[in-house]
């Protein structure tokens, strides 16, 4: 190995910092919250810390937009800012902001100390953002760990509930288990190519024959990443963890880390031109869709039902990974964004309705919600319709593009499985809608009014759901350009 680096002992330049600006902003706000937490009065200033976190995530959104103007590599080929990374930065920071909005009321009702909570969300977002822009497996690994560890902790935040700590330990142990697989894959990839930098790996694999070791490496990395996105057969943890974790956090961890991991998966699958991609994805996608949907059919707990649905949606999303890059990447990105909008919205409703200690989470509790709170019921219905994939909601176009991309790659079988699955899915989503509107309320007590912040979160997610369902053009266009950037 040459020692050339000694000659270039330069310090990072300004543009280097610009290219990690959102991460910097998020970390700084996270630290401010952490420092202020013991100082301020918990009872009175619950909201102050939340607002600070909100400002932090908004600042991160702004800096993402600023950053978009200066694409390029930074920190000696560690991160790359391009339309692809900006798309995911924007998505993740927005998810963070919306989740913070949904948490305001929840934390108060559950009587949870908020300081570390908001700081952890922001720090977690740092990791997720970095995952989408990192082009070096070392950095991807650390970023993945940051996002994972923060979600392990957040999953256990309902400390008085036994199921919450159980969710946390299950998620933690299995997550670390999967991380070890991912890491082993990275080690073998390093062994196969002699590098951990994605562009170098790509060059190495493109020139000459692909060593068998690289195949095994891809397999092991897929095990790790597949676990994180809840793809079958690595999905088993999802229902348990989603049931036990606090509802706003489930909204968070079913979208933001997933989006980030999908970004990594896109890089590995498409940028590296992972060998053997097709069969692997085919089976995983088909299994995820089927197991997720069938599992959801008999669920009585709404959080659990949504957990199974999120497995199924991971399956739909994986279908895009089996398609050709120029169609698959944009459709996967579009799906990620749509899914984020509708799922966070659904969990926002769940977190409000759950009440203290998340008492009301079964399907029966939801009976007559349509009469008790028409606004909440209407919002939930919209999100569920979008999850089914009804036109003029985001879910429709998301599925539409994914399936059409798959069909252009001649994956007729996979598309048929997907389409059949989306019919089965209609059954259990409709079951919720039927319960909400067509059953008599079990409990006529007045629901607490929807507070302003939660209302804002619902409005944002609902409008995004409809916007993406009515005018998907701009987002899709941007995603297509990102695909171009990713593939050079």
């Amino acid at each position, binding site marked *: 190995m040459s020692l050339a680096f000694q000659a270039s002992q330069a310090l990072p330049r300004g543009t280097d910092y610009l290219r990690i600006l959102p991460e910097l902003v998020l970390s700084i706000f996270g630290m401010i919250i952490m420092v202020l937490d013991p100082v301020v009065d918990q009872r009175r200033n619950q909201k102050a810390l939340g607002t600070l976190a909100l400002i932090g995530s908004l600042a991160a959104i702004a800096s993402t937009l600023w950053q978009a103007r200066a694409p390029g590599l930074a920190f000696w080929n560690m991160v790359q800012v391009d339309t692809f990374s900006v798309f995911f930065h924007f998505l993740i920071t927005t998810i963070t902001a919306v989740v913070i909005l949904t948490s305001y009321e929840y934390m108060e009702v559950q009587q949870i100390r908020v300081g570390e909570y908001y700081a952890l969300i922001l720090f977690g977002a740092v990791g997720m953002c970095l995952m989408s822009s990192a082009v070096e497996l070392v950095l991807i690994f650390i970023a993945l760990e940051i996002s994972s560890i923060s979600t392990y902790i957040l999953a256990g935040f309902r400390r008085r509930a036994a199921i919450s700590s159980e969710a946390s330990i299950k998620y933690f142990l299995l997550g670390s*288990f999967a991380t070890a697989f991912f890491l082993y894959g990275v080690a073998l990839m390093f062994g196969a190519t002699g590098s951990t930098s994605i562009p170098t790996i790509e060059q190495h694999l493109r020139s000459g024959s692909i060593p068998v070791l690289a195949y095994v490496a891809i397999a092991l990395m897929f095990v790790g990443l597949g676990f994180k996105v809840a793809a079958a057969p690595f999905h*088993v943890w999802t229902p348990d963890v989603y049931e036990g974790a606090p509802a706003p956090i489930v909204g968070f961890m079913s979208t933001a880390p997933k989006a980030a991991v999908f970004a990594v998966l896109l890089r590995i699958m498409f940028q590296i031109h992972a060998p053997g991609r097709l069969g692997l994805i085919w089976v995983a996608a088909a299994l995820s869709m089927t197991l997720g949907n069938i599992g959801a059919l008999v669920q009585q707990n709404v959080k659990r039902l949504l957990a199974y649905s999120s497995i199924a949606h991971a399956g739909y999303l994986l279908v895009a990974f089996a398609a050709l890059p120029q169609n698959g990447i944009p459709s996967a990105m579009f799906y990620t964004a749509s899914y984020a909008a509708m799922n966070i919205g659904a969990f926002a409703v769940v977190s409000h309705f759950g009440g203290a200690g998340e008492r009301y989470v079964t399907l029966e509790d939801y009976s007559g919600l349509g009469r008790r709170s028409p606004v909440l019921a209407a919002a939930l219905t919209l999100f569920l319709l979008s999850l089914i994939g009804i036109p003029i909601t985001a879910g429709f176009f998301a599925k539409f593009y994914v399936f*059409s991309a798959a069909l*252009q790659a001649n994956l007729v079988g996979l*598309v048929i499985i997907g*389409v059949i699955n989306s019919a089965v899915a209609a059954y259990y989503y*409709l079951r919720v809608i039927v319960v909400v509107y067509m059953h008599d309320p079990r409990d006529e007590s007045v629901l607490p009014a929807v507070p302003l912040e939660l209302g804002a979160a619902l409005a944002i997610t609902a409008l995004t759901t409809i916007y993406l369902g009515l005018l998907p*053009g701009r987002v899709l266009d941007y995603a297509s350009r990102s695909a171009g950037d990713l593939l050079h």
Partner: protein
Amino acid sequence: MTPDLHLWLIPVLPLIGAAINGFVGRRLTRQAIVTVAIAFCGASFAMALYVALRFSGLAIPHLETLAPWIRAGSFQADFAFYVDQLSLVMLLVVTGVGLLIHIYSIGYMWEEGGFYRFFCYLNLFMFFMLTLVLASNYLLMFIGWEGVGLASYLLIGFWFTKDSAASAGKKAFIVNRIGDFGFLIALFLMIKHFGTLNFDRVFQFAASMSVENATAGLLTAIGLLLMVGAAGKSAQIPLYVWLPDAMEGPTPVSALIHAATMVTAGVYMIARSHVIFERAPTALMVVAIIGTLTALFAATIGIAQTDIKKVLAYSTISQLGYMFLACGVAAFSAGIFHLMTHAFFKGLLFLAAGSVIHAVGGEQDMRKMGGLWRKIPWTWATMLIATCAIAGIPGLSGFFSKDEILWRAYQASWAYWLVGVVTAFLTSFYMFRLMYMTFAGEYRGVTSDHSIVQEQAPARSRPSAAQAHHGIHESPRVMLIPLAILAFLSIVGGWIGVPGSLGGSNRFDRFLGPVFRATAPAVKPQHAAPGETAPPEQTTEGLESHTGRGTELAFTGISVFAALLGLYLARLLYLRRPALPERIAAALNGLYAAVANKYYVDELYATLFVHPVVEGSKHILWHGMDQGVIDATLDNSADATRHVSDSLRHMQSGNLRSYAGWVAAGAAVVIAYMVWTGTR
């Protein structure tokens, strides 16, 4: 230079009405709600009339782009509207009949709860239906297509406190989803091979392809998939099961959605895609066969139904079968003609049935009616007209359209014709049976019995139930006027398309001609239908010179005879000798039970599809995978209580190590697969 007609207003006006009623309807008075709903629907109808008036001055097809929608790479779809002769006919039918049914609903729904909701949904339905009809590309059409399904779901489940209504809504929705896959996959195929979903471009591509006579190629695949979609929406075999259940909705809904407009969307879609079908004879044949079978099958079920709305529902399915048959023999204009006349007389039948139900206080069982003609003469008269029309009594609208279909079917294959005539006989029979059971004879209901009424309409707080005590009464004028108008249309509606053989010039066929003939394939498809084949794709003029007028008149005579035979038989059985049907039923015990139970198709589907999925999910995944596989045997040292609670706990998973086991096993499979690929 084509004028800008602001076509977008036609669908958007009802949407505004729906929005107003949906958001503030709760605070409005009933008058205000009605005014809003009728005004916006009426404005839409006025716009449609305006388009019709300007039609001759338009370059056909007339395209208007409202706004760009999706531009992803080479794929493009806009919010754009498309008017040609076909969509104009549909437009007028939908807005016209829709308006009449809106008016009728004022009277019918006046006493119901959720009045604003009803009109909101109704307007919403109009929005989606008009989007479907006016769309200039398949994607926009699909949005309307799914939207009408959604609106129909909402309206079927309108009396949602009734469990049967809720589950009927769900059934309709899910069966429709199955059909929608076909449609959706067809769209994907179009995107893949044509790169576009715009009608003009798709048809251009399709027109440039050769007829797939011997080989089943791309167009056949697309055609068959579109057929699956159409079968779902238009309730054809095997996806018809939702329509009878959909009768749980309020009667105006049944009239508008499940008779006149939405269910005909499948026919419209096939007619719209005729360029594709004309080049895919196999797909066309499937359409024809399914249509024929459905027509016959539903008609036989209709014979044994006792619920007045169920009879009409099966009759609708059967008539839709006729329309499919027409499309299947490439007589698209005949199919659309029947669609239009059917909208008139079937809409009328449902409205009249609603009026009957209204009159007898919510009763729907025909066995408890009878002798009503004196008490509700207007309803009786209009319904009689509609019945004559659907039965094919000469001079009324149904006669002309059905005759046209049968004649064209005969030219494709005598088998189609024969089944068609038998169905015509059955149609006439069950419709007159309905008339005799309802209006003739003595009243068999128990007016003073409170409980029956309550039982039949448990959740409907209808004061008309109370009126039942005071006797049967004619409906208010606001309901009778639409009946009268539709009756008028049912009489005269056929005269615009009198076939040449009956001395007419078939103006309807000529009007639609440009749509269907301009793109007809240069080489005639060899229709693969069984039996004698004749080239189906010829102009009516050509056909006349080919076969001669006498033959056609003879066939007309046969179908009229069949209709009259049905009338006679119904009269014989249900007026003269009311005891006879029961004896026949007893004699044909098994067959009658099968027919009365709709051939047990619902039960079959439940056992075949629904049950396995739900139970499989429950047993295989839940009990099998977790309870069965997971160890329930326990350590000996554990005491009895622990034993019980632990065995309960261990029965279901939740065990971390099992989860890790799945992950490890999955990892092994993934590694094995990848090693296999790598070393291959």
